[in-house]
């Protein structure tokens, strides 16, 4: 029974990845723009490559896009290489492969997204739950209100304003970059602190931008749950307020939010990648932005595909988590 469920989810995941790679394969081919030729023309103008490099690039270009082969054959080759996580080479930073670029930038993206996703989920849901809890003191309930006002504001815009006020005007924080220029990266305490210091504003932008959404949905959920008979009966049982809040109210109200978390991952990564390039952090988003500027198409397609696959995988993982939280799911 359980195995069947897992297999079905995995099949769905493969379907999603297939759809994403198919889209990234066919859309560029629908335009009459030829990325490789354009890139070559550009490189030839600036004279930024040697003849031997050119041969390798052409070779990889033939292997990748094999324009001499029929379209469907190209497509199957492409799907095959995606399945092996071979995403091609960078035209701009040859001979780096796209996978290498992803690996070197991934830690930055993960640390920013992980911290901001978890913190905004926890803060937002807690504040939303409290805002809807009639027995919480008024001042505590009203903490959520300012966050609701940020609901419509995307993290990117918050990033711009935080840069302006806290970094540019008050000079409290750096104006971007992963760490101060002139410091050599190592694992010393000072360096780590410096990195974290540069991460504060990006993280705050991300958190402020998504807390409001959680507050709103959790408040709505909380209003429903607090009217449930089991919350009332918990009070009739003489339970303390904390136990009722945690075990009877919060736990039940959080269940739909977990699904919401999975659905929010996509927009979180989207915002994260733009915020990264705004703060010039060397993560996936910045690499994507640079690739767009430089017409480095393999990198664009590779990063897009990688992000898509990660989001789909995470969503399926969260769905696996769900039966652990809600015992009713197992029965279905």
């Amino acid at each position, binding site marked *: 029974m359980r195995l069947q469920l897992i297999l079905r989810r995995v099949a769905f995941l493969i379907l999603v990845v297939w759809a994403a790679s198919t889209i990234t394969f066919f859309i560029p081919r629908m335009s009459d723009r030829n990325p490789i030729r354009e890139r070559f023309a550009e490189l030839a103008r600036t004279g930024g490559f040697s003849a031997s490099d050119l041969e390798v690039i052409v070779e990889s270009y033939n292997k990748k896009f094999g324009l001499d082969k029929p379209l469907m054959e190209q497509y199957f080759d492409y799907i095959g290489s995606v399945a092996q996580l071979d995403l091609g080479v960078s035209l701009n930073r040859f001979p780096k492969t796209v996978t290498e670029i992803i690996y070197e930038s991934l830690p930055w993206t993960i640390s920013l997204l992980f911290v901001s996703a978890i913190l905004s989920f926890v803060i937002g849901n807690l504040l939303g739950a409290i805002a809807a809890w009639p027995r919480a003191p008024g001042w505590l309930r009203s903490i959520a209100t300012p966050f609701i006002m940020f609901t419509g504001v995307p993290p990117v815009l918050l990033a711009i304003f935080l840069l302006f006020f806290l970094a540019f005007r008050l000079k409290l924080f750096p104006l971007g970059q992963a760490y101060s220029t002139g410091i050599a990266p190592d694992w010393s305490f000072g360096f780590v602190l410096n990195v974290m210091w540069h991460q504060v504003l990006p993280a705050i932008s991300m958190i402020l931008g998504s807390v409001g959404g959680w507050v709103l949905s959790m408040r709505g959920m909380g209003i429903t749950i607090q009217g449930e*008979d089991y919350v*009332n009966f918990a009070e009739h*049982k*003489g*339970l303390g307020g904390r136990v009722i809040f945690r075990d009877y109210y919060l736990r039940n109200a959080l269940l739909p939010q977990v699904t919401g978390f999975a659905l929010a991952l996509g927009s979180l990564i989207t915002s994260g990648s733009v915020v990264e390039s705004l703060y010039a952090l060397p993560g996936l988003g910045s690499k994507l932005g640079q690739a767009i500027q430089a017409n480095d198409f393999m990198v664009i397609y590779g990063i897009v595909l990688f992000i898509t696959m990660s989001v789909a995988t995470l969503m399926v993982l969260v769905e696996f988590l769900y039966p652990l939280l809600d015992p*009713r799911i197992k029965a279905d």
Partner: protein
Amino acid sequence: MTHVLEIRDLQVSYYTDLGRAIALNRVNLNLKAGEKLGLVGESGSGKSTMALAMMRMIKAPGRIESGSVDVDGVDLMKLSDEEMRLARLSRIAYIPQGAMNSLNPVMRIGAQMVDAIRAHIPDMRKEAMIEQCMKSLESVDLKRNVFQMYAHELSGGMKQRVCIAIGILLKPKVIIADEPTSALDVVTQRQVMETIDRVQKEMGAAVILIGHDMGLMAQFVDKVAVMYAGRLTEVSTVRDMFTTPMHPYAQALIKSLPNLKNKGVFQGIPGLAPSLLRIPTGCAFHPRCTQAMESCKTTIPEVQDHNGRLVACHLYTEGA
């Protein structure tokens, strides 16, 4: 004989946008240990409000205006919030109306029973708590393995039994069961009522059974109290109530019960129950009463004792 429950002048209002609604109007009631009282009345007559007021669970915009509820000599209305929390379930327990939904879907039944004990006796050993829960489950005819189960794995009747098991966990002096059988089928209704009856006898607790199924009520309670528009109109023994109801409203209620003698004739009570926002002056029932007199429109009848029966009606004021 002393009373285990004494309610004096209990009054509850709801403050709405349209004005103040008096949901419970100076109610007095006594109950001895082991006594079973059925509380009946139309929807909105104040039965559930009375139960919630006794538990001190009236939520805004409602407010308990005055009165006292003595359980075993302790006035619940004078307790601090924390003392009242401890009194719930240990002195006075409430078995909820919507038993279908009264159990937390994401916690095991056992955890929901244990946390009830822990809230009252925090230093008790875990094994002792579990043992007490098991005993309680067994006393309502449930198997011990229900302890490990979730609400969605139980039938409606079993869920209601779990609620009863929770209600009797700490051997309260007073148990209020708010329409405990309303969502169950007839056979299960009977079984649940028998369960309540048996545990109540074992514990010697006073029971208030709220409901509108007069037939079911007649088989299980000793006394019946009839409420109308937030007031008690008559409190009598079951036999008296069903054979010679005194208050015209009680008479109408009894008459409206189906019986074999006048089969096919459905007798209702003319008129509608009054809105609590606009309770008629004098006796609240007078606009619908067939025996109303001039004084009924102006003065509120006091509850008076007629040979052990409590009636609030002007018909009996002069004659008595």
